[in-house]
């Protein structure tokens, strides 16, 4: 007995420490990760009329609606000389990335309970796959955004000059994705336990959209209530996204630091919670 005891490699126990995150195991499933991403694309655009073109139609239609309603009808300004189409489109594209991957992630347990109760693999693979899927959709939409931008530069006398902020764009996208993944993981646990909270998720996501500078620039918010918008860690990211891409935005280094710290903290907390509660949830669901 004592001879073999040393050779037995893995142990299943009741308690899992908060920090025994097994990165090697997660990595060994990277093939599954990419297959799941592929699956999302294949399933979503099979038996559809326009197929993957929907990825582009959705933000285009939304942009036209926003331009019409907010800019033309209500008259929300977008900044000094920025074309409203570019302003709204850029905001919508980034917001889509955030909200879609957040929504998908927050329903991971609910939607995959059957799979999770039948086979073990690192659960984190599924939310990661969902976020990466949304990232690819975002990239496709970004290409369209750049094409529109090129059109405005070539034919409409819209100028952008190279700034260092442009190099910050990957950081913006990464941080936005990580925040949506982290909050999504957090809510995936909560909504699996309490189903009525899915309503809360939907509503608060809609409210959060108005608390994020998507349909208005931060510079238009009155000084005395600006802190409400600045409390939102996404605000500085959206402003930086426009600043890098279109040359207009209001960003302070403290704001960025706040978003970064928020991202790191929420990510670690979410991973720990997800790891710890993941196995327990199968009993409850």
């Amino acid at each position, binding site marked *: 007995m004592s001879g073999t005891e040393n050779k*037995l490699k893995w142990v299943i*126990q*009741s308690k899992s420490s908060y920090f025994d995150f097994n990165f090697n195991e997660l990595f060994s499933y990277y093939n599954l990760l990419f297959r799941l991403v592929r699956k999302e694309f294949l399933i979503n655009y099979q038996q559809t009329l326009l197929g993957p073109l929907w990825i582009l139609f959705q933000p285009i239609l939304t942009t036209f609606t926003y331009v019409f309603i907010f800019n033309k009808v209500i008259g929300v300004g977008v900044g000094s000389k920025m074309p409203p189409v570019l302003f709204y489109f850029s905001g919508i594209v980034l917001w889509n990335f955030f909200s879609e991957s957040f929504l998908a992630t927050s329903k991971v347990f609910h939607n995959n309970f059957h*799979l999770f109760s039948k086979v*073990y693999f690192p659960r984190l693979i599924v939310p990661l796959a969902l976020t990466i899927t949304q990232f690819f959709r975002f990239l496709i939409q970004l290409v369209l955004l750049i094409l529109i931008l090129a059109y405005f530069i070539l034919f409409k006398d819209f100028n952008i000059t190279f700034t260092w902020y442009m190099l910050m764009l990957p950081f913006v996208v990464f941080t936005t994705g990580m925040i949506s993944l982290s909050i999504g993981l957090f809510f995936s646990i909560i909504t699996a336990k309490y189903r*009525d909270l899915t309503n809360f998720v939907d509503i608060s996501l809609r409210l959060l959209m108005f608390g994020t500078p998507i349909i208005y620039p931060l510079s238009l918010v009155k000084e005395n209530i600006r802190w409400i918008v600045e409390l939102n860690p996404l605000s500085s990211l959206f402003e930086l996204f426009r600043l890098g891409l279109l040359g207009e935005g209001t960003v302070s280094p403290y704001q960025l630091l706040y978003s970064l710290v928020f991202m790191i903290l929420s990510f670690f907390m979410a991973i720990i919670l997800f790891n710890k509660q993941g196995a327990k949830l199968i009993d409850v669901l």
Partner: protein
Amino acid sequence: MAENVLEVNNVSKLYRLGEIGSGSLRQDINYWWKTSILKKDDPYFLTEDTPHLSNQKLWALNNVSFEVKQGDAFGIIGSNGSGKSTLLKILSKIVKPTTGSIKGIGKISSILEVGTGFYTDLTGRENIFISGYTFGMNKREILRKFDEIVEFSGIEKFLDTPVKRYSSGMYVRLAFAVIAHLEPDILIVDEVLAVGDADFQKRCFAKMKEVSQQEGRTVLLVSHYTQAVLNLCNKALWLNQGVVKDMGECAGVVGKYIASSQQFKLKQCWSPENAPGNDFIRFKEVALIPQFVNEDHSLNIRTPLTVKFKFWNLTDDSYISIGLQFFSYTGECIFDNQSFSKHFDKGLIEGECVIPGNFLNDGSYYISLLVAGDNSIPLFYLEECISFDLEDYRPEMKWCGKWMGAVRPHFPFRIEQTTFNLELYHK
């Protein structure tokens, strides 16, 4: 001596019936407020028709310990609710034990269902990959096995068709093909054999046997289909209400399990209103009467058994013969003892047949009675009217493995020495 590849030490799993939440935050907060802060009784389980569930605990598993050695085919049997599935889920890392630990070596794959990781909208080809990866195969393994999987499932033509267009048989075949080509060190299989047609089941079975016996992998099979366990496993564990009831050599454990799960019927009587039968025959009574030769009154292989039966014959001037059929619990007929044909008129008919001791092997049996008319035309067949167990009895025997054979007669031998040298042998 093979080495342990899996050690399960005192594993328990507790489910708190009252705590498995109401599913809504408002109710849970309300519940917590009333029970923890106001110290009131549980408000949700106080109605009269529901018992007080809040403190009710259910030990799905209670101090389960066992070891599995390299190359073992290990069967886990038990009735529904015995904790088999819970144990399986713990071994598969899907849920965690409440206490205890499991140590193991090597890659472990568990198959709780056929078709896990399949997406109906995807093609067969996509599904082979995604399901394989879900079970932890790597790319090289899948590529190497791909053709074999396709061949095993027989779906070459439909490889690029979404599996939702497959017939259910094709779907199951493909799903099983993926699982069958996993190459873990320890394979855990739930009752997946219960799907598909007979031919398919046979193939699954052959594959499982190949995995466990030729390739020498360790297999854990969880089932209440005891024949599968008997055919495939060399060791077995019997779980009953979360506790290990018996463990050891397969046939013995399975036999005990079956005996306990069977309701012994040694005697059945009927009144004319509910008597089984038809327009010709109505049974009144069947009974198995053992002539105990030993004092502890247990039915064992030495015990002579008398089968007595009474039935009403409803037709005059008929010739009737009786067939007494003994079956083992697996449904194999051990023997079919036919009586002569005899003339009877209306009325009650009684009969008996004595099965001598030292004839049947130990095990569980049931009896069916066939009443046949003229020219051996069956008049009525009374199926499984008696069931019983025969215990083993070997007073002067050191060897205690399972005795082979369906019957265990005690025919006399004549053995004697005829020469006292080896001259003929050396020539």
